[in-house]
């Protein structure tokens, strides 16, 4: 999505949501009501309600097996819900454009296609003509300033490059909302740090609502406008912590008093929920 297009969106203030207080007044993008889900005898969600604000990056964090990924998979329609309603500005999932980035990029990309064709594939599913697919993909690549050789097959690329290709594939349709399921947890630390910066840059430029599942608290807080802290299942919202640190965040953000305090608060909530077992 270009900056100009973004300016035409109904709520361009989304990018500024890091400013204190602003987030509370906005219309929600996603509304979840009465969501229920069970796996065999385990009740993962029971009449779960949540509003996800527009144009914010939400990190989902919680104890192991509490249903972090299950939540975004249900929102993104990858697994069916037992009961409840999930609406996007009042619309159903099949009426909106969205992107999804898998943790396992190796299995999510198509190894028989070059990286460029992987990125353009969702446009093919939308019946966009070949010439326009190429133009739109090239535009996205230029806009993001990506400097990797997209004529390579994915298996010839490093893990970070492959995940970057996955993210571009999710962005090429200009989604209204982007889901990321532990996108960096299969990468080495150096690449993880680099990819966090890439994601933050993408978020600041596009203002797309993003929902990120993370198992690393520092990453969850660093990237988020709000951290959704879940309890053990059946999952409740333990806290929906606002992260006020201004963007763009950098290494120095990590030692800011405000950031440290927010992270400590999240850790406290998390540990309280872990002990509750």
């Amino acid at each position: 999505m270009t900056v100009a297009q973004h300016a035409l969106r109904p709520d361009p203030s989304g990018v500024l949501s890091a400013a204190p207080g602003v987030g509370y007044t906005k219309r929600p993008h996603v509304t979840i009501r009465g969501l229920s889900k069970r796996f065999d005898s385990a009740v993962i969600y029971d009449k779960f309600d949540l509003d996800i604000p527009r144009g914010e990056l939400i990190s989902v964090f919680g104890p192991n097996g509490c249903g972090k990924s299950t939540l975004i998979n249900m929102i993104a329609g990858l697994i069916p819900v037992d009961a409840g309603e999930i609406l996007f500005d009042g619309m159903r999932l099949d009426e909106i454009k969205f992107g999804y980035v898998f943790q396992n990029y190796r299995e999510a990309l198509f190894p028989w296609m070059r990286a460029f064709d992987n990125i353009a594939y969702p446009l093919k599913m939308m019946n966009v003509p070949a010439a326009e697919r190429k133009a739109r993909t090239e535009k996205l690549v230029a806009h993001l300033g990506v400097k990797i050789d997209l004529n390579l097959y994915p298996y010839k690329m490093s893990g970070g490059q492959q995940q970057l290709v996955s993210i571009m594939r999710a962005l090429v349709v200009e989604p209204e909302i982007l889901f990321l399921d532990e996108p960096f947890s299969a990468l080495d630390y150096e690449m993880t740090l680099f990819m966090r910066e890439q994601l933050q840059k993408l978020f600041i430029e596009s203002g797309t609502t993003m929902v990120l599942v993370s198992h690393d608290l520092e990453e969850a807080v660093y990237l988020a406008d709000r951290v959704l802290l879940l309890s053990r299942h059946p999952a409740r919202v333990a806290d929906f912590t606002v992260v006020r640190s201004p963007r763009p965040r950098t290494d120095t953000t990590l030692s800011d008093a405000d950031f440290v305090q927010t992270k400590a608060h999240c850790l406290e909530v998390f540990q309280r929920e872990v002990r509750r077992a």
Partner: protein
Amino acid sequence: MIARRLDVFLPLIGVAGLVAIWSGATALKLVDPVLLPSPASTFDAFWKGMDGGRLGFDFAKTVYRTMMATVIAAIIAIPLGIVLGASERVYRSLEFVIDFFRSTPASAMFPLFLVLFGVGDETKISVAAFGAILVILFNVAYGVMNARKTRLLAAKVMGASRLRVLFDVMLLESLPQTFVGLRNGVSLALVIIVVAEMFIGSQDGLGHSVFEAQQLFDMPRMYAAIFAAGALGYGLNLLFLLIERRFVHWSGK
């Protein structure tokens, strides 16, 4: 460095060793020379036979029958395997029948196929195709069924229809396993063809060549025909490996 570069010649050591032992055994007359001719006379029979001789003709016949059987098997088994693999419930309902006939020695089917097709080429080719079909079918179906779940979900999440997922993802996902099936299928087809050429009123082919040489006690010619069959089996496997590497470049990556 130099030692590393010479590593490509390592496989030749086994060949040289075998020929050396063979030469020694014949030179020292450790084995009855009628039963084991020298490497030189065997190679001579091989060369004369392949160079416009009878062996070359038999070789070509066997290649033709094996390839016909494999092609027919692939044409039938690949689409069928995709259909079966695409629905696990359909596959489960037919699994026993497929496994049963896959486990049945194809040679046990000769009499039946003789009744159906007579003593001509059709019988040999169809029995071999029957054996190869089940092997290829099984592998294709498994390739489709074992398509990476994440990849299928990724396609679904991007809005691909069921048919799209089948052609854009499952079909390509199954290709590496399909080639495993094709390699096993062509090997099995060759075995069945050679056996059929020996015993089902055949006038030509490598099987017939081996059998006839044995009947005439022409041992160099028999060994030459055996080596021709070995070379053919090895060559066919290699051919399919090369095709796989060319078209399924992502296999194993």
